[in-house]
């Protein structure tokens, strides 16, 4: 049976999907700006962060209004609560993309200390995790969401590896220190983006099954030692 306020939930859903699309675009553009030293794209990314901020506020308002007036239960209640949490994660993804582009100007002033290989690799995984997490939202797919959580370790490992590598650069060639630090921060931002994608995936499992899998063995990579 259709209810007269079902369209409110549809709007809520599409706002979250839109946030997901913007967040993915922001990360992709931030990486492109970094690799191509494209300062104007970097500026665009920084300027577009406001879109995500405003959508997060809008989703919170809609969620609180819906809970107050429509008394949702079961899947609907989970959708509203998960929507609020996921929108917060997506807003933070936008912040991390902004953190990345803030470093582009400084990095592009000097030649790269090494070719960009690991950062794009990490970013590709993180972006795919984000995309998949948003697909799980559309498809209400808990199994796929669990696989996303398990991929987080790949990004964590790459981040640690890059950290070690950049540390040795700084020791061997102290003049690279400031650039190496910028790259470490970028690596950390990408690692955080993957964490937010993992959070969203966990939220989608909760949406689909009503099970809270955070901090459980389930979400760990089975290959992890």
């Amino acid at each position, binding site marked *: *049976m259709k*209810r007269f306020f079902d369209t409110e939930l549809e709007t809520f859903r599409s706002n979250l999907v839109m946030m997901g699309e913007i967040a993915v675009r922001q990360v992709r553009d931030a990486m492109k700006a970094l690799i191509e030293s494209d300062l104007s794209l970097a500026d665009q990314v920084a300027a577009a962060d406001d879109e995500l901020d405003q959508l997060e506020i809008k989703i919170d308002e809609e969620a609180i209004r819906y809970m107050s007036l429509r*008394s*949702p*239960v*079961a*899947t*609907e*209640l*989970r959708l509203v609560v998960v929507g609020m949490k996921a929108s917060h994660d997506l807003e933070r993804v936008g912040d991390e993309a902004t953190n990345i582009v803030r470093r582009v100007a400084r990095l592009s002033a000097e030649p790269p200390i090494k070719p960009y290989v690991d950062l794009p690799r990490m970013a590709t995984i993180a972006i795919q995790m984000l995309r998949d997490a948003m697909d799980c939202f559309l498809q209400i797919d808990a199994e796929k969401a669990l696989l996303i959580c398990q991929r987080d370790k790949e990004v964590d490992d790459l981040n640690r590896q890059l950290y070690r590598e950049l540390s040795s650069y700084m020791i061997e060639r102290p003049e690279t220190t400031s650039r190496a630090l910028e790259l470490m921060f970028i690596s950390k931002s990408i690692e955080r983006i993957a964490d937010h994608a993992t959070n969203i995936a966990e939220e989608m499992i909760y949406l689909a*099954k*009503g099970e809270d899998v955070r901090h459980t063995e389930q979400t760990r990579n089975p290959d992890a030692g």
Partner: protein
Amino acid sequence: MSAHTLMEITPTTFAPPIADKPAQADSEVHQTLIDIANLDFFYGETKALHDISLKIPEKEVTAFIGPSGCGKSTLLRCLNRMNDLIDIARVDRGTIRIRDIDIYQPDVDVIELRKRVGMVFQKSNPFPKSIYENITYGLRLQGVSAKSRLDEVVERSLRGAALWDEVKDRLHESGLSLSGGQQQRLCIARAIAVEPEIILMDEPCSALDPIATARVEELIHELKSKYTIVIVTHNMQQAARCSDRTAFFYLGRLVEYADTQTIFMKPSDAQTEAYVSGRFG
């Protein structure tokens, strides 16, 4: 309503003092008090309940929910054999045991049963007598006449029904002079005056305003420390607020029975989900 009918439907005498057990902590697993097994029920040729099996724990609130005609009130009325009053109604198969006694056995004294299993109705139905007489009616029928004893029961019951402070100075005024919400609490006081073990409530708040409803809900919460309560309600939020366990019925069948949190947070049946979300019914 004849006096005979009133006696039939109102617990009138003192039941064994089972209700005096201390309240149990929420975390304790409560024992099954009412055990319904494979119950089929007919009105004439129409099967109203299909193979219902359900265990209701003691000193908890169990809510029966479902769209009109789903059988929830019929099942409630089976629990104190209220349906015996309808000629064409019959339990065809299955059992209902209360503390291991099959209440449909021919040797069960129905009047005794209804003393143990009190009932509160949708429309408050105080007797056209004083507040005091409403409460003492059952005890007087039992032959209790000592004023001190009656006074004590009146105060205890009215306090139990959270009505004492509002009516203590007007106990000899007519029960019908009270507001709707007060009348409903008077009926609850009358039900608990005879110390039943179980209180059945059939839509007890549907005729009440939100404040009176909140009082009755508060009362239900307090009463469960002493009594086992089974409530039929159309108000989803009431079931969510008041009950520990919820049973969802549809077309005479028990679709899902679980703790209330599960029913409202992650029901396992799609029909339950649709009903509690207001998508059908």
